[in-house]
């Protein structure tokens, strides 16, 4: 005891049973080492829990959309008449339209809804969502404050028409398949940046084995796709950051 205490230059504080002498090098106080590793692991595991579980849970706030819009219902010709278009893209752009000057309107304004849902007094269906639309927005002529899953920072210039018309990229390639959704997904807003989780991607690690374009919408993803499509020249800074 005395020898070991001397060799470690630090008195052992426990009087527990020890492995036989000579098993470990003399300079190693095994009890202390076990303790060190133990505490190291405590810190490590705590950090892993914080980094992988708590941080993502705290980072995003959950917000419901103002109205639970039913894409599947609207795109079902048996139930809703008037969404014109042969191909899926044409149907999408019936509401998510391109303006005359080629700019993209994005999420439709109330005026688009009232093309059909014009009279607050006579709803077209029987859903509570439509009632909500009529009383809260159509009757008061207020814009619906939609939360936009794919909203990018203002410093990013993105042209839809270049991708959809010239690049022939289908809407759901980047946005995922909304057409079959009966409910809008929960909107997870990054508390720091104010943007949706869809930009960084639902996986907090940011890594995917078989990444689809709809998984993430960060700058690297844009660049990766440009390169794959042989449009590397479009990775120059000023193409998007005007």
């Amino acid at each position, binding site marked *: 005891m005395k020898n070991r205490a001397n060799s470690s230059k630090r008195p052992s504080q426990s009087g527990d049973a020890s492995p036989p002498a000579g098993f470990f090098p003399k300079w190693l106080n095994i009890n*202390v080492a076990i*303790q*060190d*590793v*133990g*505490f*190291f*692991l*405590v*810190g*490590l*595991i*705590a*950090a*892993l829990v*914080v*980094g*992988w579980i708590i*941080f*993502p849970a705290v*980072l995003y706030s959950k917000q419901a959309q103002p109205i639970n819009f039913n894409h599947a219902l609207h795109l079902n010709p048996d139930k809703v008449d008037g969404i014109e278009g042969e191909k899926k893209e044409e149907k999408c752009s019936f509401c998510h339209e391109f*303006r005359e*000057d080629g*700019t993209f*309107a*994005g999420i439709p304004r109330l005026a688009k809804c009232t093309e059909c849902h014009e009279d607050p007094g006579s709803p077209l269906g029987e859903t509570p969502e439509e009632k909500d639309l009529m009383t809260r927005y159509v009757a008061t002529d207020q814009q619906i404050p939609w939360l936009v899953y794919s909203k990018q*920072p*203002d*410093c990013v210039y993105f042209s839809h028409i270049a991708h959809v018309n010239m690049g022939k990229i289908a809407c759901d390639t980047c946005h995922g398949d909304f057409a079959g959704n009966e409910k809008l997904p929960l909107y997870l807003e*990054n508390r*720091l*940046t*104010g*943007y949706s989780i869809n930009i*960084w991607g639902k996986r*907090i*690690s*940011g890594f995917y084995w078989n990444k689809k374009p709809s998984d993430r919408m960060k700058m690297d993803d844009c660049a990766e796709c440009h390169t794959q499509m042989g449009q590397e020249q479009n990775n120059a800074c000023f193409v998007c950051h005007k």
Partner: protein
Amino acid sequence: MKLTRRNFIATVVGGVAGIQVTPLPWKFTDDVAIWTQNWPWVPVPPTGEFSEVSSVCNLCPGGCGISVRKVDNRAVKIEGRPDYPVNAGGICPVGMGGLQLLYNESLRFTGPMKRVGMRGSGEFQNISWDDAFRIIAGRISALRKSGRPEAIAAVDGNREGTTASALIERLMQAVGSPNYVRLPSLSDTYRMGNIVMEGRDAPVAYDLENSDFVLSFGCGLLEGWGAPGRVMNAWGMWHDANPAKRKTHIVQVESRASNTASKADLWVAPRPGTDAALALGLAHVIIRSGKYDAGFVAEHTFGFEDWQSTDGRPHSGFKTLVLKNYSPEQVSKITGVRPDVMVKLAAAFRLAKAPVAIYGKGKNDLNGSLYEFMAVQSLNALTGRINRPGGVLLPDPIPLNPLPYFERDDIASQGLKKPRLDRGGTQEYPFTQSLISNFADAINRSPKSPIDTLMVFSANPAFTLPDGGAFKNALAKIPFVVSFSPYRDETANMADLILPDCTYLEKMDDMVWPVGLQYPFYGLSKPVVKPIYDTRNCGDTVIEMAKAIGESVGSAFPWEGFEDVVKERAKGLYDAGGGRVSFDRAAPAWKPQNPKAGDKPGYNSFDDMWKKLMAGGLWYRPLDQAREWPWLFKTPSGQFEFYSQLIDQAIQRASAKDLRIAVRDDAACMAHYATPTSTANRSDYPLSMMPYEMINLASGWIPSPPFLYKTLPDTQLLKETSFAAVNPKTAAKYGLKQGDLVAVQSPVGEVQARIDLFGGAMPDIVYMPVGFGHTGYDEFLKGKGVNPNAIVQAEQDPVTGYPVWWNTRVKLVKV
């Protein structure tokens, strides 16, 4: 196990190691970077649908067409309209910065208000429009009931001929007060000059684009004179990039090396206020050479040669007067310009194919001098440059419908018989419609203000009048002041009640004949955005106010709103015919066009025309250069009068002394130069001060968009102090260096400024920029520099009575 220091460190090391293999540090860094882009004070462009709205800029009398880019309902950019005849795509810095006047809430009144703080403190409390109308209508009705309608006065800064000014004048007529006072501007000097020499109550029309020699007497061509968009365009045409193709010569007559003077082909610097002598000196050289336009002079002018009136009295003509008094040597003594320069300049002017002499003083905001205008116009007549292409044109006025007749009640009829407080239109001021300096003076001189209620429209006289603060003093004495200004300006801050107008981007308004344009032009601006605050178009407010007053006042305003009145007046344009409501860039309005027999006006009914007028915002008659001579001049002689018989008649009714004319006999009826009088002692005040204007600050009552302050050099505004430009020689005489703080003292007051040594300043003259020294508006405009108007001691211009603001005696005292 205890948590020792060692164990704690182990935990931390474990934690640090662990966190590296989680996304936290990398994601967190990325998010923080994005978070910094989204701070709430970082300006972010709005997203939405883009649109362009065409309208007309109303920030100065230039009337440029503007195209406003909008994203959804937010206006984001103002540009010049290429499809507009006046500016053809050009725009000035003030026009470009106009959005700050719309969206800068701290500059504006956001709804009707009444004063709660001391006068001038700018403390107001919100009230409803109903309450506001009740207060003002009650006050006016009470004054009318007590038989004192003349105690109601209106100061109107809208340009003459606009629908807004027509309505305000009508309101005063209906109420029964003669005290409708307009602010003087260069247009008034032009109008009066045209009346006395040509018998035409019309604006001046200079055919600049077709001229090959522009002799500018004081016009700030690059400082915002006339319609700035038009003049800048003309300047571009005059200065073709290829020197061989350059065809127009510019001569600038001005005492200071302004931008115009610096860029002109020749800069002639006479002493301030001696332009008339110089013009007559040039006339002398031309007459003496015998090479004036004898044909024009003989056929179309009156009073050139000596003549005899019907009573047998002999009169000396313009020729005799000029030959006797204005030889280059005599003129040189007055102006300081060398005789040989005058001889050469006169020859160049005479030999040019299409020369024109134009008259102005800086921008259009302040009046000029009648006899100076007459001298310059005489030079045009002498060389036959009137009613000739590239010279001075004589188009007909704009055929707007007059407002319909209405019945006045007894109170109004009695009130209108009372004399005007400013004595405008009396024997002393026969051609002057209103004189705001006399108005202020009358109030200041009486122990109790004869005006009980003053309404101020589109004007900020407490700041813009070159009167040494006289109007501001008068305001303090008037019991009740109502301001219709959209902005928190100095005059509005003195008001008891605010009925805020919309800004020019939120309302319909009309623009009648941009200053100096050679063809009749009517512009119509429309709301680019809906009023963003609780403000109302002043025209609508006037109509509503009249209805609230009721009785015969209300019935004089049968319209629903302002737009109805504009439409009713515009019907006159349709009835007169011959106008166009769209503009083809390939056929500029200044290019002579021969209307063909089959030419269609581009509209087929009045409603069609009105629709197109609203959409395009323009009506004009293409240039009609040489007009038939008979009936062109409506003077007593039917000719262009070198010798103005109207002035002669005015002198006979009053006397030359009453009209403040320094010379006697025949000279008094012709262009002449007289040494300006000043009550200030020359030895006490050895220098003279001249305010000057700039293109990059707004004109008149309009606040400058704060952006523009960034364009000012450190020799005009440095932090809180503005500069007074003086010649290095003058500065040396008083031991002053660049940047020294001085008090500029005049007999009426003192302002402090820093010295800027400027070689382009005439010795013994102190030049001070106009537009600084606000006490109203917001933190960006308030307390920056000083307002030279506060120390102007202005004498009255002969005949017109307008202030001679360009010649105040001052001294410099180092602080």
